[in-house]
């Protein structure tokens, strides 16, 4: 499962621009592979906004907090496969914390979101990662996503120091942590759409789909498929930039 052998084409409204190198498909199994994915992170970091951007390609200002958890699905094409993401978008409030295991228990993938303008949210993200690594499916693919980069991006061309002033989590710091903890790492903007698709595409690439053609994906619990040999579990690079493919 090397990077250059994979390439994703999503059916959903795609916004990311990227080169697509078509690799001839090896098998034409179009039956969707279900991937259960859970979003975790502190309240108000933009979990729901990320999902809505991914699923409906829309963005709502001042979105109200999620209650409990919301369930959404989205189909994507990755190479020759169709992947159906079953997404649990959880509420970030503390009172829902005790429910989280119910959602990540069987998940094959998790996106842990923090807010780049709020350093405390990275701490919360780290504690989620720890919990996932301790209690979730051992093969769960975890992505760390720093959201709201639109708030810290220079508005004009050229690097303006002042534009970075809102940022509290330097990219390098988060990236270093992600590498150390073995996570995929992204910085995203649900508002503008930057990087959102990459998160899901890279997750899809990293999940050992071949072993997941199980007809009962919902029931994949413990002892799910193990990663393919040779695939490093940790991938600290930003795959969106470094991998040879994108969607």
């Amino acid at each position, binding site marked *: 499962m090397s990077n250059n052998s994979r390439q994703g084409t999503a059916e959903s409204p795609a916004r990311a621009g990227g080169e697509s190198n078509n690799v001839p498909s090896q098998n034409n199994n179009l039956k969707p592979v279900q991937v259960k994915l859970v979003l975790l992170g502190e*309240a108000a970091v933009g979990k*729901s906004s990320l999902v*809505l951007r991914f699923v*409906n390609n829309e963005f709502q200002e001042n*979105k*109200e*907090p*999620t*209650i*409990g*958890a*919301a*369930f*959404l699905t989205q189909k994507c094409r990755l190479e020759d496969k169709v992947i159906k993401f079953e997404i649990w*978008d959880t*509420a*970030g*409030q*503390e*009172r*829902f914390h005790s*429910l989280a295991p*119910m959602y990540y228990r069987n998940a094959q993938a998790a996106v842990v979101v923090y807010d780049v303008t709020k350093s405390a949210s990275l701490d919360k993200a780290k504690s989620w990662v720890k919990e996932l690594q301790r209690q979730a499916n051992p093969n769960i693919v975890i992505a760390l996503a720093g959201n709201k980069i639109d708030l810290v991006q220079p508005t004009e061309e050229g690097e303006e120091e002042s534009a970075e002033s809102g940022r509290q989590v330097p990219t390098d710091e988060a990236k270093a942590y992600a590498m150390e903890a073995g996570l995929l790492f992204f910085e995203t903007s649900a508002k503008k759409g930057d990087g959102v698709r990459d998160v899901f595409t890279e997750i899809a690439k990293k999940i050992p789909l071949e072993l997941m053609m199980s007809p009962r994906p*919902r029931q994949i619990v413990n002892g799910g498929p193990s990663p393919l040999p040779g695939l490093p579990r940790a991938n600290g690079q930003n795959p969106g930039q470094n991998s040879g493919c994108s969607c």
Partner: protein
Amino acid sequence: MSFSLPKSPLLSPMSPIMEDILSDSNSVITSDEPYSPTLQPQRKFGVYKTKPTTQLSLSVPSTKAYSSSSAGSSVKSFNAISNLLDSSINGESRPKESSVDDYLLEIMNRSNSAPSTDNEYLTFCKGFVDKQKRNFTSEPESDMSLDFDARHEIDSDSSIEWIDSHKMSNGHSNNHDMPAIPIDEEYSGYRRKYGHEDPQSVTWYGDESRISSYMGVIQAIVSFFVDAEDSLRCINAGNHKFVFLLKGPLYLVAVSRTNESESQLREQLNYLYNQILSVLTSTQLTKIYEQRMNFDLRRLLGGTEPFLDKLANSMSDEPGFMLGSIQCVRMSKELRDKVGNILQIVKSKDLLYAMLITNNKLITLLRLKKHSLHSADLHLVFNMVNGSSTFRSVESWTPICLPKFNNKGFLHAYVCYITANVCLLLISPDKDKFFELSDAKNTIVEQLTACDALQGIEAASQSEGYSIADIGVAGLRHFIYKSKTCLQYTSPAFLASYNNPREKRRYTHDRMHSRVRPLKVHYYVSPSETILGWITATFELYAAFGPLISKTALTNSSLVLLKWIKKEEENLFIMNSPVF
């Protein structure tokens, strides 16, 4: 009789506190300023606890009953204040009885009841109000003594009457200079949480600094009474009414300038408390405070502010909260039955309740046999579904505690909008049943679509209900009819001429007025309208007519109205909710 607070030596121990309250609630009440009877008809300050105001309460039995309970030096200052205030009140030629009445009331209302967070107040037709008030105070005096003992047992509803009768007919404007503050605090004296809700504005203010000093004051006052093994129920200070609801670790306080009575306000506090329980359950709440006395509850309530706000707002507008009933969408019985039957398809042991809701109205409710759903719980459900836009686009799965069903544990609600306005809600005791219920939803939608019922309910949910004109009763402006057997009420859309919030509220309050007294019939004429309140064993009717209608015409019209309701009964109400 001028009143100078700072000068009184008696006040010294508590005076900063009282000053805070007084000056905040009512800037006029500070030193030496004479009361103006016209502008401040309600001014009085009552702290009822401990032999309050002995000389004032005269022959009132309650005082005696009450005075036994406690003592203590600071009581003196309360008394002193009360006395001062009362004398000022008397000085302004207010009938003494009325203030006593209010004391009585507060004292009497020691039962449980509810709260609110409104803060509209009256700046409107004062002269007229005064007149009305006098009429009213004189008339019910005899009642007062008669009812006196009975009121203890009757519930709070009946006892509040008084305050209302003084205030009825005051229109309210929507201005408010002081936000209502429901406060939750822990009773040992640690501050739990403050937030205040101002129903007129949509935010739950984060501006603690503005109220935190009052919080301390309130806490001190409440603790004082708790120490004496007593509980504080209400304080009247000028135009403001402070109503307290002590629920285990939480103190809820409503500050109101509306005409709402103490028990109505407390009712509303109860709704707010239930809302908090629906998020946390009483088990969790108790545990938290056993473990950490000074826990800031907002950490756990994070994200529920919109619900508390919405609830506070709707309590000021919707009669359902006061009536303890809910409203159904008017639709043909056939359609409702059809929908009910389709819902039955999904019955399973995983399902406790299934319901279709639109805009705070019920379309149909399917329940497990033996598990009826309390209207207070339904209000919470409505409030949740309506209170957040996040349910609109997705399938949601959320824990919810329905306090009347079981305040110790969570149920799990599947929420999904199946059309733009119609929301399907499935409640299960099992937290792992999301996918089963999601499949059930698909089945339901399929079936509803197959028999065109989906469009039918969507259309019914979009319509504004019916109007007075549909009924064709001469002179009728508006009415609210509550069926006591179904615990549902119906009410037409407000007419344009009867539509502004002030009118609406005024009407509402009058209606409440007649409700809260154990009166069978209440007839009231004001310069702008005639109000009839009529309570029987099976229904409560509150109707507004034009001011000039004769009693005979009114009676006839009411009968016609009742006949119409009877005819439409099956469409207006859910007469037999299906069970499985």
